[in-house]
């Protein structure tokens, strides 16, 4: 399978450094404190945040920061072939722990001692880059919940196909590519890397080019997410009526 034609087009018609069609929305679930959907091409992820609320039980009682808890699931109908992954499946656990670590690095948990924040992330349609899309959805939901964070966090996946770095791999590219891939999440304003997760072996010299492409991707994703959040804020502000100073 030729993932990248000599004419420089990928199977779906994108050039190597192009993102897929990106759509996101916040406040999509009425009963959650914060919620969002994030779509990257045919990948669609929904996230819901409950909290921060007072921690229950002994273990978290004396904490000096908020306890962030994550649930992650992939819907059985998300792919061509219906398959329910177990909660203990390695792929599920891996993304879950990545989400949790990334959010812990992002949320100013010390401002909310003795509280719990529950984040539920559900993949509705999977077409590659689900880790990055999940983190983006989770971040939007956290922001929608009004939870204080360090910076806008955005994630994307890059990979090496036929020695060319490509941005935002879809499922076919993830499966057919024999090259390495890299998922990166960063604080786009602070330019700090939050998640840097590589799969497959890659030459040391190649890491930098991939990371640069990933940074560009994160910035582009971040820009789109920022405008969604701003739009939402503007909408909320208008709903409150004219602001008087």
């Amino acid at each position, binding site marked *: 399978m*030729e993932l990248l*034609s*000599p*004419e420089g*087009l990928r*199977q*779906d*018609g*994108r050039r190597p450094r192009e993102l*897929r*069609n990106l759509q996101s929305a916040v406040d999509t679930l009425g009963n959650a404190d914060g919620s969002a959907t994030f779509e990257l*091409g*045919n990948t669609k992820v929904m996230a819901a945040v409950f909290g921060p609320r007072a921690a229950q039980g002994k273990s978290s009682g004396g904490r000096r920061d908020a306890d962030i808890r994550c649930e992650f699931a992939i819907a059985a109908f998300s792919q*061509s*072939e219906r398959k329910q992954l177990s909660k203990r499946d390695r792929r599920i656990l891996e993304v879950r722990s990545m989400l949790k670590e990334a959010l812990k690095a992002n949320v100013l948990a010390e401002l909310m001692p003795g509280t719990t924040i529950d984040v539920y992330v559900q993949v509705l349609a999977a*077409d590659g880059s689900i880790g990055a899309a999940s983190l983006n959805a989770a971040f939007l939901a956290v922001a929608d919940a009004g939870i204080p964070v360090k910076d806008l966090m955005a994630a994307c996946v890059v990979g090496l196909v036929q020695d060319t770095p490509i941005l935002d791999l*879809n499922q*076919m590219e993830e499966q057919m590519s*024999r090259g390495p891939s890299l998922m990166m999440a960063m604080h786009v304003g602070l330019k700090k890397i939050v998640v840097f997760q590589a799969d497959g*072996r*890659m*030459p040391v010299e190649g890491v930098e080019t991939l990371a640069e492409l990933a940074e560009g991707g994160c910035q582009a994703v971040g820009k789109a997410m920022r405008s969604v959040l701003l739009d939402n804020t503007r909408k909320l502000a208008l709903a409150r009526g004219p602001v008087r100073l």
Partner: protein
Amino acid sequence: MLQRKQFVKKTKKGGVVKVVREHYLRDDISSGTPLDPESDPAVNKLSRDASHYLVADTNVALHQLDFLEHSAIEDVIITSVVLEEVRHQNQSAYQRLRTLTAASDRRFFVFSNEHHRDTYITALPGESPNDRNDRAIRVAAKWYDTRMPPSMPVIFLTNDADNLRKAQEDGLRAMTVQGYAQMRKDTPELVDLVAAGVTAEKENLASDSQGGKGAKRKRIYEDHRPTAAITAGIKRGIYHQGTLRAGRAQEGRLVCDSLADEVLIRGRVALNRALDGDVVAVELLPEEEWTGDGQKTPRQAPSPGTEENGDEAAAGGDGDDNQVQVAPGEHLEDDAWASTGGKRPQAKVVGIIKRNWRSRGYAGSLQPPREGQNRAGATSWLVVPVEKRFPFIRIQTRQADALMDKRIVVVIDGWEADSMFPQGHYVRTLGVIGDKDTETEVLLLENDINTAPFSPAVHACVPPLPWAVSEAHLQDPRREDLRGLPICSVDPPGCKDIDDALHIRDLPNGNMELGVHIADVTNFLLPGTAMDDEAARRGTTVYLVQRRIDMLPKPLTEDICSLRANVDRLAFSVLWELTLDGELVGCRFTKSVIRSRAAFTYAEAQARIDDARMTDELSEGLRKMNAYAKKRRAARAAAGALQLASPEVKFEIDTETQNPMDVAMYQIRDTNQMVEEMMLMANVTVAEVTLRAFPACALLRRHPVPAPRQFEPLQQVAAATGVSIDVSSSKALSDSLDGAVRMGDAYFNTLIRILATRCMTQALYFNSGQHAESEYVHYGLAAPLYTHFTSPIRRYADVLVHRVLAATLDLAPLPPSMRDAAGLKAVVDNLNVRHRNAQMAGRASVELHTLIFFHERIVLADARITKVRSKGVIVFIPKYGIEGTIHLTPKAEDGSEPPAEYTMDEQKQTIRHCDGQLALTVFDKVAVKIQIVTGVAHRRSLSLEWMSRDELPESEHME
């Protein structure tokens, strides 16, 4: 713009799933022509000054590649939908098309119509994918047509009548390839290159007086079963799948996983249009139809072609048995099973799963008209392939007169059930038949050896000449300066690509240091470069009698890498420390700079060893090395290493005409064995070290243990002389070979060893991750591990091994490609194929020179019988290294079978004339008369004739 592609697909498990994919349409796709201001000048390939642009449809791109590749065809637009369809249907056609579109000197442009917002179309309701794609090509052609100024016509090429009509309805200038070729009056040869499509063939046959037997041709072959029926049949066990191996065009055999025995397929009808190498499905014939006893292929009676197609009658006789081969190796397998007798399962082909028609074509020549036949002006001709395992191929040509005495290349286009022979078309002319250079081209083509000059990109990787070791090399801490050592090389005379050099010296601690220095090719051949890719593709240097086809460009092969005498060169050295008793006490590897003091030939080195007056450092060193090598050799033999013999001959070539003047057995000296022994030692050591460091990606060479069945022919003939051969292990075999001697017959043992060599399987390269550890063994050398390290200039495997060894020593990182198991397997598989092809080409070259040598020469020679058959004996002629059949019963003029005059005793391997005068037993000495005979369509072969030994001059007698 976003389009969503949806389709349903069947999974491997049989489920049906819906697949949804995104499909982006763009507005920045270039049209590749400077006439379009919106096209990106960087990618433009089409010319502003062309007289027209061509748009080819899928079938043209798939079947008319020879036409498209002609240099007169330029300014062609290939749409991405065509590329995609070609890729699905035929991978090799796709590669050729891609080569065309990538070539900088050809004006072929790929238009990504499927992602262009103006040319993307969705299938109409009820429209088949094929029709949709055809329409997409027409839409793209139309798009060009409207976008180009009127001065630039766009011609749409299609051979499909329906497509042609629709295109004309759309207002496109559409024509068939034939029509276009005829229109191109500037290059008349284009017409011959047009592949015979099925429809074209029928038209031609109807109009051709020769083949014009009316539209209703008799069906000769059974139809192939549909794929679904074959798959189902294989599942139910009524059909069997395998790769066809054909020794002749009318007989093949097949090894199937689903059957214990090899099955035979006899006759054209049973073969049902399958060619050597095709993956086929067969159905076993009922046992009563098995013809058994395979002494002779039964003539297909009645051969369907003979009555029907007069000009094809001679084709029935293309199985002439005068097969004479030099060092035949595997060739003789055919005979091995043919004479084992008994009934073998027979089958017929019911379908072809995968065609293996060569895209590079088949070398052959036109079948000359029989006497009294007037074929002037005929355009339909049969081509007789050089290789007997392929059938005759029918082509259409208007240049028959010019081609009659030429070797030509033809490609097969198709084979209909009502056609005796496959349809093909002419590709190019190689030269005059019988000419040495032409015939060399033929053997290179038949063995798929790339003789094209290296591309500029490859040459760009070669450092400029004159090249010398620089200060940087000497300062490099990873490189030792070994220029002070008494190093020399020993090679065949005239060797310019010196891979290896040796030294031995006394160490201060009383021990000796033995060194093998190998050219440091990987210093120049870096992974991932154009040169590396090319070398990996070529795999090996090919040695012909009078010519060498290099794996690396000449400056590297002959100068920069070659360890020539008295110049500094870069090397990869293996250094052992030995006690005076020859015990190994240490071993290390290093990259080095060396200066060889002398480049000896085997004979020169031998003379220095033998001449006790020579006491210089080099001669003393050679003597020590020789003594040590002998010790190692004896130790290896004791461990069960086989000493095999292969009849190698050497030609004395006339420097003026390049023709062979004399032939002689290749003389093997102690020095040959000395160098071989040192190289073995280095190879084994490197194999061990690299495997230890990289258990999953070391490149090794294994020689599989042959199945006992393979030794049957040897055991059979040996038993007839009272010698028993124990094949239970390589040690047992080695011992029985040593024990196979006859008093007063020194050559007997060599003969037995030659026969044993033929029972061996081929040694193979493999990647250690690919096989279980128990399969690593090298049977012939009785070595648990082996690899190739010592000839990186001429073998790519050695290059890979050098890289792994460098990584083992932390001198360089392991190239990532070595870790890619699937990719590496592809490379290694190719190396095995290339290695084998190079060997076959080498043998074919020797065979060709033997033919030239015997041209207009009738020679008497001493020979030994190696096998007895029902109507003759197979003899081996040591002096010329050739083997062939002596037919004791000459073939009758009219082709009828003469009465049997001879009786064969298979047990005793004796053939006896019925009047009791003559009895020949295996290993007997016989005299033969050797001469050239010319067979069908210029096939020349050696003919051997039995002579009384009294007629042989004394000088020709062998001891």
